[in-house]
């Protein structure tokens, strides 16, 4: 069980960062598509929506390959990062975070868009009339009211980031103790026919996921109306 702690910690770090980044990116994109621009721009919005969903549709390994092409030290973005800031993303846990973020992004984005669209615009108007700027309206009305749906998306994204390894592995390389996450370890154990070791790791990863999901369920301060009615 000793070899479990390092990948476990790494896994949580990567999944945690990916989820946090998606909280910002996914919620931002979801809000923008739900609220910006006049209603008649619907086709444009739907097109952007579909484009932003594409990371979901590419096999993660393939996505990872294109990511390598993009942020590798020869890639357009990677070369620029390397020359300008001396940052190298390939084979680092930060690279793994980027991969996991992209893979899980559509989960948060789509959940957030649907949730913001479900928020009653009249409540936002009431808040504006009470003196709140657009920022304050977002944080005090729109976000809390959309939170239930967003949280569902975030939890999916976290689980996906835990389980993702195709793209992550491609970008981060499987460097023991540095970029080897739990799911890569499970994958290897299964590939190598080590069923017992694999099963053990599956229990660990499942336990981690369930724990985090249960804890996060408490993160919803406003539980909304409990169904009081009879059935």
């Amino acid at each position, binding site marked *: 069980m000793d070899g479990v702690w390092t990948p476990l910690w790494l896994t949580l770090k990567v999944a945690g960062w990916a989820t946090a980044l998606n909280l910002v990116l996914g919620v931002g994109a979801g809000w923008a598509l739900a609220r910006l621009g006049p209603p008649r721009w619907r086709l444009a919005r739907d097109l952007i929506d579909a484009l932003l969903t594409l990371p979901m549709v590419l096999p993660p390994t393939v996505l990872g390959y294109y990511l390598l092409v993009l942020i590798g030290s020869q890639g357009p973005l990677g070369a620029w990062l390397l020359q300008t800031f001396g940052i190298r993303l390939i084979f680092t846990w930060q690279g793994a975070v980027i991969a996991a973020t992209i893979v899980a992004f559509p989960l948060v984005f789509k959940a957030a868009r649907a949730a913001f669209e479900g928020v009653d615009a*009249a409540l936002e108007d009431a*808040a504006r009339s009470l003196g*709140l700027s657009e920022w304050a309206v977002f944080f005090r009305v729109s976000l809390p*009211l959309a939170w239930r749906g967003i949280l569902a998306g975030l939890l999916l994204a976290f689980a996906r980031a835990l389980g993702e390894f195709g793209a992550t592995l491609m970008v981060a390389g499987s460097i023991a103790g540095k970029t080897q996450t739990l799911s890569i370890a499970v994958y290897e154990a299964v590939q190598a026919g080590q069923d017992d070791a694999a099963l053990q790791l599956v229990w660990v990863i499942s336990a981690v996921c369930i724990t985090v999901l249960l804890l996060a369920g408490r993160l919803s301060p406003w539980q909304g109306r409990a169904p009081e009615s009879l059935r």
Partner: protein
Amino acid sequence: MSTHTPPTWDLALRKHWPHAQHPFTLDVAAQCHAPRLILLGESGSGKTQTMKMVAGVLRPDAGHVRLQGHTLFDHAAGLHTPAHQRRLGWVAQDYALFPHLSVAQNIGFALRTGWRNPTAGHTPAAVTDMLARMGLSAVAQHLPHQISGGQKQRTALARALMSQPRALLLDEPFAALDPALRQRLRDDLAALLAELALPVLLITHDEHDVAALGALSGEVLRLPPPQR
């Protein structure tokens, strides 16, 4: 009052709602020197929509909105003060209470305009006073779905009053209240208005409201019935 004093309410509003079966066009204009302007009109004549345009949450197609000489909206001049800078205490017809905040938090909502909501634990003194005045102390910690129709309406009224508005926009503020309570709040509000000298734009179906809140110093704007 000198003749040079600008009118309290100077409204000229045009707005068209396209709708396949039944488009609706609203066209109102009023200049009112008295502090109270009462909007009357049949159901569906456009009272609520007019008020929304004054509040700044709905943009007219043309016209202007001026309050005591301040221009809040002027289509021709391309001027449009956003709703959050108008400081108008608006009580919407359907209350628009924030469902995730308690009655006390709803009432204290406008006390801070930053990006954080009032905390659930601590109720500022001003909110406690207002709760008592509105007979809402018992339900201070209830969420909107846990209170009655009349309690909702009083919460909306209290919330608007707490926002230190420079005018009040009241859309049937007492419709859900029983006669005794209505009488009490109407008198309360009349006293408060007399004290603060706040301009009021009022929609009501109740002549007693008109009498108490408007008659002394009010004018009436009557909207034409909706086209059928």
